[in-house]
């Protein structure tokens, strides 16, 4: 009995030891993977002495957490992938609009919220992957043309439940209108070589193994696999600006509306958009820096020039619901 009491009191002491946040700290609620952002946080701490505490979770869960914590939340920054998630947090009034010369000049217009609620920090390209042994580059044009009859039983796609595909279809709606977008996605579904995959890696591997000839993936997944296996028999294709350009999305961040450290948090975001941080961010995950003039990694450079679709990413959020319903209607699972 005594030992049980001892265990309980030790446990209670352990439970009560919360993490106090001191003045020289910033709290980041992040849906980004620790190993992809930790090195940048560490670099900031080394430079300024400000420690970055973070808690990771899925973006929608973090939004609910912020809502429930309200004015007593200790979060200063909300950081996530996909403009849709950032848009949702802003819609719910959880982010504070910021005016900063540095952020405006470092980050192109289409990669940040027009009202200053959130800012893109890296660019991720969702583009076409193909098997060079069976497909000539000249046969590829844009996302829409993957619905042509010549790709029948040759296309592989990831599940429609992934937000990356929802954003892609949202941007198709914004480019072509809902009706045309629906016929494009219908033609994709008709061309599928096999059931949809749970992630991008599986799509790339299927193309490499000959299960299909073309697919749509985020470029950094391709980068990771290519780095591991340089002999992988797949290649990336970037649609040209004249045919709509490459669909891009962002990882980004905004300042939490209840933050008591707005000035300090703004300084941190400005630093994140600057040369040093941009270089680390781009290197870490084979993504593209948002700031002009910052070099990409050598591997990314070898893929050629990225011609982005310049529609404002806010629409990815606004049209996400419509995109999901569209995909449900045409049976894209």
């Amino acid at each position: 009995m005594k030992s049980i009491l001892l265990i309980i009191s030790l446990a209670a002491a352990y439970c009560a030891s919360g993490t106090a946040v001191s003045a020289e700290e910033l709290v980041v609620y992040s849906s980004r993977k620790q190993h992809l952002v930790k090195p940048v946080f560490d670099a900031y701490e080394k430079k300024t002495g400000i420690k970055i505490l973070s808690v990771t979770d899925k973006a929608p869960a973090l939004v609910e957490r912020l809502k429930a914590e309200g004015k007593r939340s200790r979060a200063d920054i909300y950081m996530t992938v996909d403009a849709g998630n950032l848009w949702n947090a802003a819609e719910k009034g959880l982010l504070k609009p910021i005016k900063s010369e540095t952020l405006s000049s470092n980050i192109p217009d289409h990669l940040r919220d027009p009202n200053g609620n959130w800012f893109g920090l890296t660019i991720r390209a969702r583009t076409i992957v193909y098997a060079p042994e069976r497909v000539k580059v000249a046969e590829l044009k844009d996302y829409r043309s993957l619905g042509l009859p010549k790709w029948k039983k040759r296309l592989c796609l990831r599940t429609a439940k992934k937000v990356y595909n929802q954003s892609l279809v949202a941007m198709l709606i914004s480019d072509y209108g809902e009706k045309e977008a629906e016929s494009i996605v219908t033609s994709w579904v008709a061309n599928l070589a096999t059931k949809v995959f749970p992630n991008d890696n599986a799509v790339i591997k299927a193309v490499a193994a000959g299960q299909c000839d073309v697919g749509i993936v985020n470029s950094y997944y391709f980068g990771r696999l290519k780095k591991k296996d340089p002999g992988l028999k797949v290649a990336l294709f970037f649609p040209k600006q004249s045919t709509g350009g490459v669909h891009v999305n962002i990882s980004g961040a905004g300042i939490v509306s209840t933050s008591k450290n707005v000035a300090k948090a703004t300084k941190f975001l400005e630093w994140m958009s600057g040369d040093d941080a941009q270089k680390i961010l781009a290197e870490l995950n084979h993504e593209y820096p948002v700031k002009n003039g910052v070099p990409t990694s050598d591997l990314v450079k070898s893929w050629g020039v990225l011609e982005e679709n310049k529609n404002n990413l806010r629409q990815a959020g606004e049209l996400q619901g419509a995109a999901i319903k569209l995909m449900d209607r045409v049976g894209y699972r």
Partner: protein
Amino acid sequence: MNSDKPSDPKGRWWRLSTILIAAVAIAPIVTVLLSWLLPFSEHWDHFGQTILPKLVVNSLGLLCLVAIGTCVIGLSLGWIISQFDFPGRRFFQFALLFPLAIPAYVIGFVYLGLTAFSGPLFTGLRSIGVGFFFDMKTIYGAAFVLVLSLYPYVYLLTKQGFATIGHRYFEAARALGVSSSQVFFKVALPMNRPWLFVALSLVGMETLADFGAVSIFVVDTFSVGIYKAWYGFFSPTLAAQLASILVVIVGGIVIFDKVQRGKRSFVSLTGLSGRRRRLHGRKAIICFGYCCTLFLLSFVIPMLQLLVWALQLDAEIWESMLELTSNSVLIGLMVSLLVTGLCLLLVYTYRFYSRPFIWMASQAATLGYALPGSVLAIGLFLPLAAMDHRLADFIMNLTGTDPGLLLTGTVFAVVIGLSIRFMAVGHAQLHAAQQRVSKRIDEAAQNFGSTGIDQMKRIHIPIAWKAVAASISLVFVDSIKEMPLTLMTRPFSWDTLSVKIFELISEGEWEMAAAPAVILSIVGLTSLVLLGKEAK
């Protein structure tokens, strides 16, 4: 018989604490149910017309497949291991529980990796000229993986059931000239019903709430719909409304069983099991082969694949594992001890000081298991945060300074959340165990003046010790595997092994996730092996 009078002060404390436990446990569920009071989402039309019917059909289909699969495998294993002796029996008796140490989604991604078109199985076949291919990304694939990961619940509980019923019934039946298979179907199976039902309801709840495995196999079940409402349409309200339908279904099944079973009791004749029959020749080989195949499929193959991946990793990733492991173990210990203690209280309040509402309360306390983890997480977080704000307001009024949120984002919140989630697991073990102890023992004890805690300490816990050990061990394993609740309620910069696995697999980094997955499995295995020792 027992001190059952309303004036009895001791019984009142027991009942009061049961109701208190139930009230805390049911708070997240009530929060989820309250979502019906909020404005209805504009997306209901789309859900109702386009996808809901398909989700329901898929969920029911998966439920049936998994229930049948785990029932056949679990029962047959429970029967042969409790009744017969054959080579390897002593090993398999515990080894067949090992799959519990590996999360279902981990078994899932291992099999999907092995059987992908680009995976080793079919690449190998193609290289020798066989073009045959089947896609595992179907409802059958998902069911296969869930059966492999959940059958141990049925096996464990029905084995206890067969051991408890005792051999005398079976021997009596045989003496009356009933064949072996008839003994099983006419005597053993009907008598095992309480254990089988508890086990199947655990399996059913786990299947309905599963998100990890079904999403790997791209099967659209009800829980996938719940996530879609929340993550896709950004409507936690719609998600909670959908989730509450699940709770109602599970609650209905529990009540149905209670009503149907009525007052029939299932009490051991002897309390001791007889001697196992030794098998020889072909029968022994079949039993051995059967156990072997299941052990290979559900444990050896996934574990080997994880080890192969883990051994290829850089040393770097292993460095962070020590802290993650100690956090996981601490959480597991706290939750499993707390849950087992609370469940003992629930089960024996019902036994000693029963009232109809006590049964309701103790069943309600276990419903947290039926909700998908993320939904329970938000259902828990809202009342916790509300309470926290009240507490902070109170302190601020008193002292003039705002202390901030004290409960949310602490280990305390994680422990409470996980305890609510896994009450059902501990309760299943202890409830089944106390059922087989005759009430006459209580009466006898009472005649010697032993009641309540004293009686529990001197009589019931020693008798039910195996079940207590099983409860601690199973809840430990479950709580270290859990992801969404741990994610949402944990403190800043405080991670566990399962959190690490989440981060890695959500980026498709399955190979890297092997490191924390291997350690998680080993920690879980250790707890199961200790259970095996304790239960001998």
